[in-house]
């Protein structure tokens, strides 16, 4: 039997949907499942982790873990992996996962695979599939090491509402603080906003919006839809949008039901971050914009005309 440890994806004290998705997939593969939660005040999440499909919950709960620091986070995950005798450790798609997974892999002498979209256990052999080259190809990889540490790409697996687990809490010793890379402070992202990674609808703004007034207009549409609000690289470079809003190969990777690209031409690096969306709607005044080559629905027009109309139509259907 394969033992799969899923690292709880926790943001601002809230358990993210990816944790249940990963646990569902682990159960589908017939694995024994555990989850590990690392942070401050995370003990209370154990019942949720059980409900999401884990049969053991490893908890590293300490005030020193309030702000993410890669070395102690990885040490706690490695501790849980050893205690559970994990064959695989899975992280949800996050900066936390990307920073911690290679460390955990070295500590467990495991293979490391990032951004995986599928995993298959064929007898003794494990294969994973992941995109590469800016999402232009898929690669199937054979895992030769006895263990695997993986970061799962957003939207790869679906949570099965039928899946559930049992509560069995194991408390871990808090890991040592990293004095050589000491986190001094966290400049927090604006709270209360809808997290891009979780949003069912994402609205992103691009260069076509021109200035702050344009950004505000598109933000209004996002708010009306209760959507996550993202950005192209160009708007971040122009200082109109924050770094953490950038969707693309180098920024956030999103897989919502509906992705609305407003005034975005569709550079390859941007497409790499959103082409997992179920449906793409593009609004662009240039009929030749590459975004229309991937959009399911395209509106050719000036966004300053189209967005207010779109808001109106949405109000009508929601009324």
């Amino acid at each position: 039997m394969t033992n799969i440890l899923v690292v709880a994806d926790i943001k601002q004290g809230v358990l993210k949907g990816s944790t249940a998705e990963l646990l569902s997939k682990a159960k589908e593969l017939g694995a024994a499942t555990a989850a590990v939660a690392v942070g401050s005040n995370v003990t209370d999440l154990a019942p949720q982790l059980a409900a999401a499909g884990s049969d053991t919950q490893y908890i590293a709960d300490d005030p020193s873990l309030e702000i993410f620091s890669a070395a102690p986070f990885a040490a706690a995950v490695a501790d849980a992996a050893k205690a559970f005798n994990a064959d695989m450790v899975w992280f949800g798609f996050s900066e936390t996962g990307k920073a911690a997974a290679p460390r955990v892999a070295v500590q467990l002498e495991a293979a490391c695979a990032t951004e995986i979209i599928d995993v298959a256990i064929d007898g003794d052999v494990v294969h994973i599939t992941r995109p590469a080259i800016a999402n232009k190809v898929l690669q199937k990889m054979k895992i030769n090491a006895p263990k695997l540490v993986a970061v799962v790409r957003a939207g790869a697996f679906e949570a099965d509402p039928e899946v559930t687990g049992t509560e069995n809490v194991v408390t871990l010793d808090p890991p040592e603080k990293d004095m050589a890379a000491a986190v001094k402070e966290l400049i927090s992202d604006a709270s209360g906003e809808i997290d891009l990674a979780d949003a069912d609808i994402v609205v992103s703004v691009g260069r076509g919006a021109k200035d702050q007034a344009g950004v505000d207009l598109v933000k209004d549409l996002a708010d009306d839809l209760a959507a996550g609000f993202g950005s192209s690289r160009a708007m971040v470079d122009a200082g109109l949008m924050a770094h953490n809003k950038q969707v693309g190969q180098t920024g956030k990777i999103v897989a919502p039901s509906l992705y609305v690209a407003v005034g975005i031409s569709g550079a390859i690096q941007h497409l790499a971050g959103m082409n997992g969306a179920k449906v793409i709607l593009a609004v662009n005044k240039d009929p030749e914009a590459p975004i229309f080559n991937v959009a399911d629905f395209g509106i050719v027009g000036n966004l300053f005309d189209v967005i207010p109309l779109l808001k109106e139509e949405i109000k009508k259907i929601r009324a």
Partner: protein
Amino acid sequence: MKILTTVKKVVDVELNIHVENGAIVEKGLQYVINAWDENAVEAAVQLKEAHKAETTLVSLGSTDNTDIIRKCYAMGIDNAIHIDDPALAEADSPTFARVLQKVYEAGDYDLVIAGKQAQDTDAGQAGIMLGEFLGIPCVSNVIEIKVTDDTHIQVSRLGDAGTEIVDVTLPAVVTVSDSINEPRLPAMRGIMMAKKKKITVMDLAGLGTSFEEIGGTAPASAVVEFMPVQKRKGGQKFEGDPAEITAQVVQLLVNEAKVL
């Protein structure tokens, strides 16, 4: 301060990539410096300009990297080492990290600056693993580097909850995001000078190691095959009266796509 930057030559992602019989079709591909490594080089050169650092570049591969190394020289890098070994064509991330470890140990470096990932594999592992192998701190996804004193830097890192400010004791590894800077276009004078500069080329034996010693012959994972990505196709594109087509599209999103 002695800075080591790492660069990789990778396939140009702007071009179309074709897959046939489980392999990438080589014909028509072009190779360029990894975009994030260019940010790493720029970051190193900026530190050199502000703090009199000495900058050394290491490139790994089984390819002729003269062109990208000359580019980095023109940007302001002082020294370059190219580890050229046919065995590295098939190497995985930990193996690359082990080569970098050997290069690091042969020098007396205070800081390693690497791109946060390579645009061919998008793995994002080698830099972090290097820190782990060396037992020195590593901060990934860095958007700012400030020198505090001879043995400390302060970096800003983009994390899940916001921007983390981290005090780092040297020696250390940082991997940089493309948000850290805009790589300079080399000036003509730099390009001319770069042509005269020497590139130290060696294979793994020259580095005092072997493919076997660094784990290359027993890779933790290996690519079995490449597959084409199912390409999205453009759907329906509407042009005309904005009010009319917008209403039409919203109806389709509600009734056909069922996402609103």
